[in-house]
């Protein structure tokens, strides 16, 4: 668009609008972190100020001491990591099957993956609850890993297709000529090449698992040592007496890892997503 002669005042106005929007959009996150560091007196003040002169770690301390947040953090991390690793391997294999091979029912299977993405997973809470109960998985982290693995797979496969397809077939040919088995080609050549795509895909698996609140609420009914972060956070909500400092500190602890992850893979994410949308 550089070739465009945009009138200067127009552009300045647009830039002012962009900056203002950026401030508005970022404000909730700023307020969250700020409130997490405010001392109790300032949070409970009816004259909220957008800064604090005496930051304190009290809220964080309360969160970690009263609520065993560290444990819930580890639980969340464990579940999300398990889902990310498992779905990366399984989705990679499936994406290879549907992009590098022609076989009967290939299109049918692709459409199934697309349709599977649209299933409102929340609606499956009821049958999954009975399934987990029969499998003896209620109150275990496994009851969160398995459903999230299933729900992140269709989208992961759908997104990975573009990355797998982008690897030139000549490479495969070459590997074959050099006497490599297909399995060897798969894991030592294709897998590393598709890794950036896997990272982009993992963000979505990670976030949907990390955010999950409904399954945790439904399947981890009695064993609070298996709780994950979202549920622990809601403990601070009490009728008319919300501990806002605790809620904001807990929210910060829960949000920051995702933010870091997101910013790290941001570029790959946008290009990966562009690929998924175009595909």
């Amino acid at each position: 668009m550089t070739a465009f002669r945009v009138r200067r005042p127009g552009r300045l106005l647009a830039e002012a609008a962009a900056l203002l929007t950026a401030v508005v959009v970022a404000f909730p996150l700023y307020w969250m972190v700020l409130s997490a560091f405010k001392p109790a007196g300032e949070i409970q003040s009816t004259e909220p100020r957008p800064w604090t002169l005496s930051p304190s770690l009290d809220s964080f301390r309360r969160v970690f001491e009263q609520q065993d947040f560290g444990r819930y953090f580890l639980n969340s991390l464990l579940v999300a990591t398990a889902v990310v690793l498992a779905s990366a391997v399984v989705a990679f294999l499936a994406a290879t099957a549907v992009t590098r091979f022609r076989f009967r029912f290939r299109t049918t299977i692709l459409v199934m993956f697309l349709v599977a993405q649209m299933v409102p997973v929340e609606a499956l809470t009821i049958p999954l609850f009975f399934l987990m109960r029969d499998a003896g998985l209620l109150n275990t982290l496994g009851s969160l890993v398995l459903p999230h693995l299933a729900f992140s797979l269709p989208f992961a496969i759908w997104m990975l297709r573009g990355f797998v397809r982008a690897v030139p077939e000549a490479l495969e040919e070459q590997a074959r000529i050099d006497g490599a088995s297909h399995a060897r080609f798969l894991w030592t050549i294709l897998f590393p090449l598709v890794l950036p795509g896997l990272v982009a895909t993992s963000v979505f698996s990670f976030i949907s698992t990390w955010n999950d609140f409904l399954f945790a609420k439904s399947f981890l009914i009695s064993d609070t040592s298996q709780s994950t972060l979202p549920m622990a956070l809601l403990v601070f909500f009490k009728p008319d007496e919300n501990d806002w400092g605790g809620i904001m500190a807990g929210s910060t602890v829960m949000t920051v890892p995702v933010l870091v992850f997101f910013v790290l893979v941001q570029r790959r994410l946008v290009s990966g997503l562009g690929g998924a949308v175009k595909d």
Partner: protein
Amino acid sequence: MTATLTERRPRSRTGRTGATPTGTSRTGTSAWTPWLYLLPALAVLGALLVYPVYQLGLISFLEYTQAQVSGGEPTSFQGLGNYTALFTDPQFRQVLLATVVFAAACVAGTLAVGCALAVLLTRVRALPRLALMLAALGAWATPAVTGSTVWVFLFDADFGPVNKLLGLGDFSWTYGRYSAFALVLLEVVWCSFPFVMVTVYAGIRAVPTEILEAAALDGASQWRIWRTVTAPLLRPILAVVTIQSVIWDFKVFTQIYVMTNGGGIAGQNLVLNVYAYQQAFASSQYSLGAAIGVVMLLILLAVTLVYLRVLRRQGEDL
């Protein structure tokens, strides 16, 4: 079921028969190889997606309450009884209507904000663009639970900065039905516009500059260029983001649950997802909850079919 690695492979193999021993070239791949690769995915999806969908349908035709779950009473087949009960229940119809209107408002808001900001991004230099992109990424990355808690706090009647800023005193946003929905809507738009903005922005950048320059040289106004050149080229992308947004916003659960404390005062802010959850796990009416789930599934299936047709019309080969 003949599987060849690619269309090209057999041909290149025959072309090189002299160089490669044909017998050993088919290393490790057979007709079953793609199915072997698909096996883990199909097993997981079959057990944890397809089977539960089947179970969901089944439960929706049974009488399934706490008595049946604990084994005290035998399950009995109800036919369409649960669905009749559902559709004659005024609260369900109200919730259904609320869900549709709320989702439509969220989609409209998300698309309007996302598209407007995407256009804005093309008009500014690198620094403001980076600032807006980073802010949007932050909103995008924020978990639904924490996004909800933060927005409730921002609009809190006593300690929130928004009421102070707008001079609303101790107006409670979650007390009234529409103000509570409006608050949730703001949060939903905040966390979902970045996807639209980034995607549409990428789409605009992909429009060839020569076309835009030609139109500008011909004296077309900015608005005219947007309407007659950019917008038609963006239509496929807009279709995709619209349908994705419909699917997401129709399924909103966490935001409503957290921000209105499980569906609002006397259930005034219930949407289908939350309603189904409450029916099943709060009232132990598992079969009614399952029937609601089936209704949602069918609505989203219809949306998906539209999505597929859009993809097809764009000449996508799958």
